[in-house]
């Protein structure tokens, strides 16, 4: 006894609907959270960029005033420049150090576990704790580094009080915090690479440096892809270490976009301005992610 084509169509449709519904049932809770905590706030943010007030007093439509203010505000420009300069210093530095450490750890046949733990510990420090630690390391009067500088006969260096040194110092601290994380990330990528390929390359005459350039770098492309995007997103949101160490000083030389947004929203109560700056940050992150996706795509 076989079914009619009509019956087959009906049953196939029902079967497909059932599997689709199961998929949506699993996705549902996530989609709700996405809408409530991300989609709606971003839309509200966009609306807020065209208004003023709205938290303590009634909101008022102001057109493009907030956008004009943002682009003409010198401190907004400074904060964007600081954030970009900071990212340009911190991301390549942490990647290079982490890659060297990952390659070294990957070459150790055994006994790497304690070193991995030691490397990862800084990543586990909250920024406030790291700031506290670095106060003792960098302080002009009682910091360890300046103690050494004085012992060597030099003048104390005011790392966080000097307008040219403060931002690189913060970048250095963030590199210290991030090195463990990125080392583990790259080490995971390296460990996953097939050993036979390296044996083949060794027999084919490729030395360690050429194996790294011709094999490791191209094969780690998916890891780099994730790393570059993730690091960009995280670093453009630089806030906690600046907040804890310098509060944007000296002379706004370490004001980041996130810190300026925080000040605008929570200290000055300028909702429209803060919202516009926030929205600008969201768009920048999205554009950069898109650009990196394009540049790092796998060319077939």
């Amino acid at each position, binding site marked *: 006894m076989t079914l009619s084509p009509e019956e087959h169509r009906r049953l196939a449709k029902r079967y497909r609907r059932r599997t689709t519904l199961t998929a949506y049932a699993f996705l549902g809770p996530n989609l709700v959270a996405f809408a409530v905590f991300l989609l709606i706030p971003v839309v509200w943010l966009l609306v807020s960029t065209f208004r003023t007030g709205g938290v303590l007093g009634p909101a008022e439509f102001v057109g493009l005033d907030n956008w004009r203010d943002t682009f003409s505000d010198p401190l907004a420009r400074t904060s964007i420049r600081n954030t970009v300069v900071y990212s340009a210093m911190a991301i390549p530095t942490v990647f290079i150090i982490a890659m060297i450490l990952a390659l070294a750890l990957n070459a150790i046949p055994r006994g790497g576990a304690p070193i991995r733990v030691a490397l990862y510990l800084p990543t586990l420090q909250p920024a406030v704790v790291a700031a506290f630690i670095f106060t003792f390391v960098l302080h002009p009067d009682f910091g360890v580094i300046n103690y050494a500088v004085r012992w060597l006969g030099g003048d104390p260096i005011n790392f966080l009080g000097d307008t040219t040194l403060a931002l690189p110092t913060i970048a250095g601290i963030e590199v210290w915090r991030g090195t463990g994380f990125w080392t583990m990330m790259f080490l995971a990528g390296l460990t996953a690479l*097939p050993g*036979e390929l390296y*044996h083949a*390359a*060794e*027999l*084919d005459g490729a*030395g360690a440096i050429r194996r790294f350039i*011709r*094999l490791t770098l191209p094969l780690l492309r998916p890891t780099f892809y994730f790393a570059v995007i993730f690091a960009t997103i995280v670093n453009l949101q630089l806030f906690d270490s600046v907040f804890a160490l310098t509060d944007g000083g000296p002379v706004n030389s370490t004001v980041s976009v996130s810190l300026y947004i925080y000040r605008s929203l929570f200290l000055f109560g300028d909702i429209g301005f803060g919202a516009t700056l926030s929205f600008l940050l969201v768009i920048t992150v999205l554009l950069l992610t898109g650009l990196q996706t394009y540049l790092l795509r796998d060319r077939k």
Partner: protein
Amino acid sequence: MSAVSPRADVAVSLIQVAKSYGDVEVLQPFDLQVGEGEFVVLLGPSGCGKSTIMKMIAGLEEVSHGEIHVAGELVNYVRPRDRDVSMVFQNYALYPHMTVRDNIAFPLTMSRRPRLKRDVIGARTLEAADIVDLAPYLDRKPAQLSGGQRQRVALARAIVRQPAVFLMDEPLSNLDALLRADMRTSLLEVHARIKKATLYVTHDQIEAMTMADRVVVLNAGRIQQIGRPRDLYTAPANTFVAQFIGSPRMPLHDLEVRDDGTLSFADATLTGDADVPLAPGASVTVGLRPSALRATSSASACFAGKVTRRDYLGSDSYLDVDLGAGLSVMVRAEADSAVRPGDTVRVAADPGAIHVFDDVGARVCGASARRQKR
């Protein structure tokens, strides 16, 4: 160190080579010489140490003891790339981000002494690709090729360097049966063309028997026998080789030598063909090669028993025959034989069918069987 020294016409020479990891000895000391142009197969079950031998020759594993000579030179302390060996890996080990052309050319582009010109690299790459019929696929990436094509890329990459020795580590084990047979032929054609010493690792006895000039049978880190395929089949050195070579597997039976130096096996008498008769009372193991036992209607049959099972293989059939008293043999029959389980058959033994091993499993002699008078 051993008194053995490498000969000039020998491409690879292993002298008392052994490998251990800490206290664990994975390869007992052994000697092996591979002649120029010779095709030697290392055969054994998984974990017997055959790939370790290969890796030690390539320089990918350190040698714990002994000396390895390639083309007359001691290479124990020479880097893999300077050993003049090429290796084909089980999983091909192709560089996934490079085209077939770049994969094949890679060893040449890495060459520093001498540094090769671009047109030389191009010409040699094409030549190697031609040998393995890959010329139409040079601009493809490995992911766009079939398993057989990928293996040919790996082979071309090994050929292009024109090394003194080829090492092949189970190169066909990832291919399906049909492709494997084709690739076996291709590999032998390539070998006949380039005539270089080749060491080939496999656990597949058909590959070993069909391809090798000589086979090295390994088990548990110890060489069991080195010989031509025919020698392994007709005169296995021990019970391991006897059972590992040949399909179906040779059944073994423990017996005791009678006072007259013969053995009683079911209703037959087995007489050893050695110059020295078997010692009365000695414990021996007897193996009967299934392919040399025939189901027959002839009166010259030496055994008779009841068929318990019949395996049809297309070209012929194999019968499990219960001879009584706990003894059974496996016997070849015509493919279209009418014999069925439950039938009684007579069994004739061809010369070379019966092998006698001593109590530690080493081969003592062959034996002939004749029906006992009742």
